[in-house]
């Protein structure tokens, strides 16, 4: 299953956004040994919401839109996989925002 399909499935299986994001983080760790933090963005503040229990410096950051951001340190995914992951997350979070309105 591709990254985008998996993200789509996790969001379908977990109607609650936090649960879905938590599952995404768990899956990335299990599948790719990729530790991430998913943050809510308020102005300049990125507030940890879910993600790895490991300490991350946030040296790699992606603004996913809709007030969400993704942080990672050591990159285990290829650049193409990151792009796919970020696009899928951005899309799911956007859809979720729309759905919850």
């Amino acid at each position, binding site marked *: 299953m591709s990254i985008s399909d998996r993200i789509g499935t996790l969001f379908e299986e977990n109607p609650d956004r936090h649960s879905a994001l938590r599952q995404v983080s768990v899956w990335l760790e299990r599948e790719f040994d990729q530790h991430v*933090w998913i*943050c809510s963005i*308020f*102005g*300049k*503040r*990125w*507030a*940890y919401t879910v*993600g790895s229990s490991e*300490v*991350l*410096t*946030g*040296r790699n*950051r992606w603004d996913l839109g809709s007030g969400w951001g993704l*942080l990672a*340190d*050591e990159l285990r995914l290829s650049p193409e996989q990151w792009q796919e992951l970020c696009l899928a997350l951005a899309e799911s979070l956007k859809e979720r925002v729309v759905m919850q309105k």
Partner: protein
Amino acid sequence: MPLSVKEWTAQVIKQDEIDRYLKNGRDFIDEEEIKSLLQNNRKSDKTRVRDILAKSLAIERLGPEETAVLLNVRDDDLWEEMYETGLKVKQKVYDNRIVFFAPLYCSNYCVNSCLYCGFRAENSHEKRRRLTMEEVKQETEVMVTEGHKRMMIVYGEHPLSDVNYMCDTIRAAYEVKKPAPRGTGFGQIRRINVNAAPMSIADLHKLWEVGIGTYQVFQETYHKPSYASLHPAGTLKGNYRWRLYALHRAMDAGIDDVAMGALFGLYDWRFEVMGLLQHTIDLENHFGIGPHTISFPRMTPASGSDFSANSSYLVDDSSFKKLVTVLRLAVPYTGLIVTAREAPGIKKEVIKVGCTQTDASTRIGIGGYTETLKALQEREDYPYEQDQDIQQFTLGETRRLDAVMREFAEMGMISSFCTAGYRCGRTGDKIMGLLKSCKEGKFCKLNAVLTFREYLDDFASPATKKVGEKVIAKEMEEIRNEPFFKKGTLLATFEEMLRRTEAGERDVYI
């Protein structure tokens, strides 16, 4: 239709947002218990004191009894050991850096009547003013042209400076971006912390959403009879518990970096240190994390306030150094802020026993930066005179940022404008865990170098740049030899970030 001052005041306090934190109807300040702890721990031998110091050095928070033991030390030699341990604790958790910020006072309208404060409602000498958004931007422009990146924004308690005004001013200050006087960089505020009166969870949530860093409320005094006599009943500030639980409400609103303080000089300093510790413990009990910073302003003369000059509890320099030391030892992982209320000499002394943050180029009059610092930028020897009638209190340190940074660089310290933590999710329990395990200091060291580099290239005078380069070289040598940084790609990533900064890229952080 806007509320009148009276109507506004009547709707601020939400009793249920006090009661939910009480235990069997009681708050966490038990005066008799504090007094008996101070009384019963007057005679401790050196072994007991040294055991407590060992606990501080292991970066464990002290208990009330242990803190009372330290507060009662009378032996000068033992105090010397405590000062040395304070510095060691600071170096272990925060390394040799000092974080700079500058306050921005937006409004001095106030509904309260605190006997020691120039802002109090009855003070007819005070010239009242509230900054417009354009003025907030002008003030911010001057601050960022000095090189500041971190702002503490301050408001009196009044409907004219309610939470909506606060949010507007914070947005306005964050919007400012100005070319730096030298180099290719730009001046910009990257973190705004807020010092404002206690408010409801709903209002605090608005501050959270606008992207603030830390929310700061000082209890002033933890001693209830003194609090009651200094803050008249019937005023908002007269409600001790509404203030006591302001930070609890902030935590519940999502603001997980909170800052506490006491105004030293209102009551016995040893009691206030115990109060701050009890406050820390109660936050830890409720939320698992303590305060991000603790402040300990000393009362200085204020416009129209005899009390501020004549209190029988005014703290002398020797006692001040002691209280800062005990706070450093009692709460080893929390930042300590010494402000420009203090004169350069004593400020330097307390930085040596563990302070982590300070301000410089500070102006606390409403509109003070625009009026004074612009003149300073045109003429280096502009004679700055404080106008008590637009200030809340009097400053002891009026030097410019560049001069203060140069002095610290000559002491071997690195000045930092790091704001990375709250822009990378490292707040609340995340940063507390890192501080307790002495890891946050490592990240801060890297960000201190990056932001100091920016300052040297964009804002520093030739004299500061000269001494600053030596500090950077020393820091880089330490970083390259530290095993922590050699793990994974951290060192390589950092070196690349430094190269980008040297090449003119700005706001690079880790």
